[in-house]
């Protein structure tokens, strides 16, 4: 059971400081699930590579969902794959975050109109925290999405969960 599952009703100064500390820990060590789907996965790899270096933000790929904190949906999600992604998401321990990377993951992207086999947006299956636009997004754009996610985590609280 994660610590975050316990909600504290009475907010006091101690909780607030603890909040800050815990949020800091979570936001500085977002381990992504090493998981590529399509074109965006290559750009995700480029983000981990030397020029952009995900590791600067404390992001390292873990291959097993059990040890990952964030899943980057990098590419087109087909109907066949959607159930698998849902399962992967369920296998991850709380607190977990999702970055939807690229047009395809956001809403089906170029395949939204005629793609009979493409899921029109990963948010139909799992809750997304940050949408990163682009097809594929530049590595900087993905990093910006990560910064946005960090911003979101920074404002979370033990007292009241932000849905």
């Amino acid at each position: 059971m994660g610590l975050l599952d316990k909600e504290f009703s009475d907010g006091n100064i101690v909780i607030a400081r603890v909040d800050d500390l815990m949020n800091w820990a979570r936001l500085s060590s977002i381990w992504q699930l090493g998981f590529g789907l399509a074109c965006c996965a290559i750009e995700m790899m480029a983000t981990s590579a030397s020029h952009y270096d995900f590791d600067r933000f404390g992001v390292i790929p873990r291959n097993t969902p059990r040890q990952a904190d964030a899943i980057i949906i990098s590419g087109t999600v087909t109907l066949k794959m959607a159930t698998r992604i849902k399962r992967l998401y369920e296998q991850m321990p709380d607190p977990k975050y999702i970055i939807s990377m690229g047009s395809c993951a956001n809403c089906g992207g170029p395949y939204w109109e005629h793609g009979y086999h493409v899921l029109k947006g990963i948010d139909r299956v799992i809750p997304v925290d940050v949408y990163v636009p682009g097809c594929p997004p530049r590595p900087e754009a993905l990093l910006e999405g990560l910064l946005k996610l960090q911003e979101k985590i920074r404002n979370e609280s033990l007292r009241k969960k932000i849905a």
Partner: protein
Amino acid sequence: MYQFLYDLIGNEILAGLLVAVVPLTIILVFALFGIWLERKVSAHMQDRLGPMRTGWHGWLQTVADLMKMLQKEDIIATDADKTLYNIAPVLVFSGSFAAYAVIPFSSKLLGSEVEIGIFYVLAISSLVVAGILMAGWSANNKYSLLGAMRAVAQIISYEIPTALIVLSMVMLMGTLSLDKISQMQTSSFWNWNIFGGAVFGLSKFLLIPFMFIAALILFISTLAEVNRVPFDIPEAESELVAGYFTEYCGMKWGMFMLAEYGNMFAVSAIIVILFFGGYQSPIGYFGNSIGVQWLVPFEQGFWFIAKGLTLVFVQMWLRWTLPRLRVDQLMTVCWKYLIPYAFLNLIIIGIISLL
């Protein structure tokens, strides 16, 4: 150390606990530092920067990782064997933790002055095997199981060359006590075992090449025992997802990680003690020359940790250079290469030491 504390406090249990705190602190601090170092070393070898945004050059990164891991939900799969699943990380961690009990960090800082120190280390590190097998089996995951089987085969096999080298060193030094082995290599780096030991004579010069070979074999086989690249096939990220701890999450996985880094330093310490003079300074003691005797143990501690970290750095360096071997090739390296060489080395060292 224990005796000293026992005299001071007069309570066996309390003294024992206090002694145990020292290696625990060292293991934790080293793991924190080691993981950060690994990430920085790997990053700079790959022309990037590594953690930069948590503290100065990311020095708080591991602290953040650790705190995050404490917050994670603890998932146990329904089909897992819960008892074994929970015991396994503890067992693995205690295996590597217990090895620290006999490692002399300096002449004043050693947990227990057992006479059979090196023997104890070899024995206690086998506890890890049981833990890994439990972890792999209990998780009820095929990848875990494969990883555990590989790990067990690997660790057990590589104990043989390790034991052979240790045997040759024990034969040469005539003692099993790690403290005594360290004490013998005193006064200058020329007296280290890698340079043939403290006894001056023809045999010393004859020993030097064989000592190098012995140190190399010991280094390689300990590398395999702690599952580092190129021998990290039990956790082989790209084939077995994460090997035997695929199903572990949060702090339980953190304990595997701590154990891994603890092991890294422990085996480096063993090599340092056996070949690189233990805690002895290579250039004499500053404290002795200015007549401040209490400084000497601190200097010794410094030298020990410096030597240990150098070897840890070499381990990391290798990790970020080499691909990994396949499971059968790993066995080939052990049984067909390391053991014959180690055995030959044992015989030659034996003959030379008779001279």
